[in-house]
C-alpha cells in the first residue's frame, strides 16, 4: 500500500519576481525590509504570508502578498502576476518522492532534496515546479492546462508505486 495523497490547493496569488540589475543591492534591500534573505538557487524561503522559490538565477516564484516587493525592487526588477495559469497541488505522505519518479527525470529520491529545496522539472511531459515543504509534504505548481491530466496521471500512478526503498 503506497502512502501518498494528492490534493489540489485553492487558487492563490502567484507572481514572478525578476531582478535584472544590481542584484546585491536588491538582496540587501530585501533582507532589510523582510527580515530574511532571498533564497538561493534551488532553495525556497520566507514566511506563511510570503513564500519565495528560486527557480532561475534571477527569477523567483512568489506565493502570497507581494505588496512590499515593488518598493524593494525599484528600477532593478519587476513583478508579474502568473497565478491564473498555475494550479498548486499538495503531495503528502511518505511516498511523494516515489510518485515524482513516475515519468520523471529528476532525482526526487535524493535525501538532499529536503525541506526548503525547490526544483523545476518535467513530469510526464509537463513542466512542474516543486517545493519541499517537509519530509512528508511537497507542493507542486502545475500549468492550468495540464492540471486535470497530470492529476489523473498521478492518481493512476499512485497505485502500484515502487517504494523508494524495497
Amino acid at each position: 500500500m503506497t502512502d501518498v495523497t494528492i490534493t489540489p490547493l485553492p487558487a492563490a496569488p502567484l507572481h514572478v519576481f525578476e531582478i535584472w540589475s544590481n542584484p546585491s543591492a536588491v538582496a540587501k534591500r530585501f533582507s532589510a525590509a523582510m527580515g530574511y534573505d532571498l533564497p538561493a538557487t534551488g532553495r525556497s524561503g520566507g514566511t506563511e504570508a510570503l513564500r519565495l522559490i528560486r527557480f532561475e538565477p534571477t527569477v523567483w516564484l512568489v506565493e502570497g502578498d507581494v505588496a512590499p516587493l515593488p518598493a524593494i525592487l525599484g528600477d532593478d526588477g519587476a513583478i508579474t502576476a502568473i497565478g491564473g495559469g498555475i494550479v498548486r497541488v499538495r503531495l503528502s505522505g511518505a511516498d511523494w518522492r516515489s510518485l515524482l519518479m513516475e515519468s520523471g527525470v529528476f532525482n526526487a529520491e535524493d535525501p538532499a532534496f529536503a525541506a526548503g529545496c525547490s526544483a523545476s522539472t518535467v513530469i510526464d511531459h509537463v513542466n512542474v515546479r516543486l517545493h519541499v515543504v517537509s519530509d512528508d509534504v511537497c507542493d507542486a505548481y502545475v500549468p492550468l492546462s495540464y492540471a486535470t491530466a497530470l492529476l489523473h496521471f498521478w492518481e493512476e500512478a499512485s497505485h502500484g508505486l515502487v517504494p523508494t526503498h524495497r
Partner: protein
Amino acid sequence: MTGPSRNAAGATLRFTFDGKTYFARPGDTLAAALLANGVALVGRSFKYHRPRGIMTAGIEEPNALVTVGEGGRREPNTRATDLFVYDGLVARSQNRWPNLSFDLGAVFSLAAPMLPAGFYYKTFFGSAKRWMFYEYFIRKAAGLGNAPTEADPDRFSHRAAFCDVLVVGAGPAGLQAALEHAEAGKRVILAEQDAVLGASLIRDPQELDSAWVEATATRIRAAGGRILTRTTASGYWEHDLVTLTERLAEPGAKPAHGLAQRLWHVRAGQVILATGSIERPIAFAHNDRPGVMLSQAARTYVRRFGVLPGKRVVVATNNDDAYLTAAALRDAGADIVAILDARPDLSAAATAAQAAGHPVLTNAVPLSVDGARHCLTKVTAKVDGQTQSWPADLIAVSGGFTPVVHLHMQAGGTLDWNEAAQAFVPKAARQNVTTIGGAANPQPVHPVVPVGNPKKSFIDFQNDVSLADVDLAWAEGYRSVEHLKRYTTLGMATDQGKLSNMAALGRLAEKQGVSIPEAGLTTFRPPYTPVSMGLIAGASGKNAGAHMRRIALHDVHTQKNPIWQPLGYWFRPRAYPQGQETLAQAALREARAVRTGVGMTDVSTLAKFEVSGPDAAAFLDIICATTVSKLAVGRGRYTFMLREDGIVFDDGTVWRLAEDRFLLTSSTGGADRMATHISYVRQYLCPQLRVSAVTVQEHYAGIAIAGPKAKAAMDALIGADAPRHMSTLPATIAGIPVLVLAASYSGERAFEVYVEASHAAPVWAACEAEVTAQGGCLYGLEAMEFLRIEKGHVVVGGEVDGRMTPADLALDKMLNKAGGYIGATGLSRPALSEPGRRQFVGLEAIEGTIPEGAMLVSAEGQSPQGHVSAAAFRIMDGGSIALAQLTDGFSRYGEELIASSPTRGQKARVRVVHPHFYDAAGERYRD
C-alpha cells in the same frame, strides 16, 4: 517425461496449449512445463514451416515462440522459455494451419530448394500493383504471431531512478559485485531478467548454492541496494543511461493494480555488466528439429525444473562444459549413448567422463539427425572421418559460448577477438561501464567445421537461414556482413541473431579466407530483448503520447456540447451546432451572426507575454519588426516577428499598458517557439536590457466579442464607453477586473477581454448573457476561419509557412524603418527581393469549388506555380474563395488559373484577386 525430483502432485497450475489443458509447477517456465507434459513440438518455422521444439532455456530461444493471453492482453511471439506459468495461462502455437501437428504450410519445406535467400527479390518484381498482389499471399504464408486487435487494458509505467552502481545480471559475479558496492555505501541497483536470482548457479550450484544466493541478496538489500527481478536491461544510452524493462505480470496475465510493465530510466554513476554468455549451437543437417537442444538448456531443465528432456541422449560438444550436462542427465536417469567431442584429444573432463563410463568419442562432429514431427529418433556423426549412428531422442549440443556484449556495444564500446574461446569479448569502453564474469572470460573451445548438408544445416533458426544461404549470398556477391544480413535476413526478428551471428560470421570468414574478426560485425542496437510497444509509450499510450491541454473554460464549453478541434496540444471548440446542424451549417450560422450582429468566442490559447521594465519598449523594438516604442500608453497595433534570416515566423498584437509595461500576443501554435525566441533574445542578445518578459499565456483567459453590435455589448458589460479600435482599457465585468483590447481578427468591430484564468467563468457567463441579449451567439474555430479568410488575414502555419518575407505577405510597409529588429539584416539579402518569389494573393472561383491545398497551374499538366493555403465561402453571398501563395502573385491580379488537387480528385477555375475579400478599407473596425 518426469524427472527424478518432480512428481505430479506438485503440478498445481492449470494452463492450456493449443486448447489442451496441462498442469505445471509454480516456478515452471512454459517450456519446462510443456517438456514435463511430454510436449516437444511447440512451433513452426517462419519460412518453411518446419517443426520446431525447445532449443534453449532462456531469452535467446529462437523456436518456441507462442502467443499468450486473450483479447487486448494477447501477446504474440512470446518465448516459452521466458514465460513463467500462472494459473489460467492460455498459450497457442503460431504460424500454422489448420493445426500445429498437421500444418499445410509445411509444403514450403518441400519447395525449399526454390525458396533460397533473396528469392523475393528474384521472383516478385514488376509494377507496384503486382507487388500488392504478391504481398497478400506472402504475408499469409510467412510470419510469426499476429498483433492483437483490441486495446491493451493494462497500464505501462516509466520510472526514473538514480544510483551509483547499476549491476546487470545476478549470477555469481553480479551478486558479488552488487554486494561489495552496496556494503561500501554505494547506492546499488541489481537487475536480473529471471524471476529468481543466481543465473548459472541455478543450473550449477556445486560451489555456491541457493543459500549463498539468498544470503547475498539479503545483505545487498540490508545495505540499501535495490534488487529488480524479471527486469531486463534493454538499452544502454548516452551518459550511462540504461533502460530496464520490468515485467510486473507475466505476458497475458491480468496484473495486480493494472500495471503490467515498468520501464526504468536508470542514470548510473557506474555500470557493471555481469551478463554472462549464450551457448552456441552446432550446424548439422536438420539441427532445428524437436529434440535438438543446447547442452546447458538440457542441464537447466534437469537441475532447475526436474524435467528430463530426453531418455537416450547424444551429447555433442567442442568444450568441457557439456560434460557437466552428460553427468546431470545420467544422474537424472538418462542413457548417454555417446559424447561427440570435436576436439582431437581427450581433455581432463573428457577423460574423467570416460572413466565414469561415458562413451566419449574424439574428432567427432554431428552430421545429421532423423526424426518425426514430434521427436528425434537417430543421431549420425562423423567420427574420425567415419559415419556412425545412434538411436536417440535428444541431442544436447554445445558449440561454444558467445559473451553477451550487447550493452557494452550499445554504450559505444569495442570488442577484442578471443581466439581460445572463438568469441568476441569486451575491449575498450566508451562510457563508465565494466564487464565482469563469464561475459568477459568465456570458456575455451575448439573450432568446429560443419560437416552436414549445408542446405539443411540451419544457423538462424528464426529466419530459416542455412549455411547454404550464406554460401549463396557469397556466390552472388554479398561480401559485407551487413549486406549478408539484409540479403538472407539472418540475425533479424525477435532473437536478433543471438544464436546465429557467430556461426554466420564463421562461414563468411571461411568464404573470404580471413579470420572471423576480419570478416566484421553487425551493429548491436537496443533493445536487447523485445520490448512491448505499450511499454515504450508508457502511461501516455492511452492518449497518443501527449496530454490534452484544456483551456480554462473547458468545462463551460463542454456544457454547450461543441464539436472539439485539436489545435496543437489544445482542444478548442470548433463549432456549437444547434439541433441537427452539421459542422458546416453551424459554422456558417455562427459566422453570419458575427457579420450581422455579434458573436463571442474563446481565444484563451493565444500566446501572451507581459514585458516590463525601463527597456521594455527597446526590447520589443528588437523582437517585433514593426515600431513599438512609439505606441502611446493605452494603444496597440498589429505586429509580426522575423527570424534572423528575414522570414516571418509569427504575428500578433502589442499593447502598451503603461509607460514601461506591454502585453504582446502571438499565435497559439507558435507559443512555445516564441517563448524560446524571447528568452534567447533576452538572455543572449540583450542581457544588458532592464526588462522582464514573462509568458502569461495561461494566466489570462481570453474572450473575443465581434460584430456590428459588439460595441453595444461591450458598453453594457463594462458600464462605460468601450475603447476605440486598437486601444485598451482596464475595466470590470461581473465584478472581476479585466483588460479590454479593441482588436479585430474577424473584420468586424471587435474586442478581446482578458481575465485571470481562475476567475474566467463568471466573466464568460456575463459576456454570453449580454451577447445573447444582443441576439448573438457563440462561435468556434471554423467560423473564425471563414471570417479571417474572407477578411484576408494571414495565419501562422498557413500563409506564414516559414518561407514568406514581409514583402511576400504585403506587410513590408509596416516594417520599422529605423531597423534594429531581428531579421532586418537578413531581409537585405538580394534573393529575398528578386522576381519569382511566391506572394500572398486571393482567389475567387470562376467555376467549381476551390479545394484547400490545391496546386495552381496555368493549364493541365504544367508545373505548379503556387498553392491554396486556405479556402472558404463568402459568408453572406456564397461563392468559393481562397488565400494562396502564387509566384509573382502581386502582378497577376485578374489572371485565370486552375486550382487542381489530384489527391482529392477536385479542381476549379479561379481568378487571382486581392486577398481582402471583405471591407478592404477597414471601415467596419471603426465606430
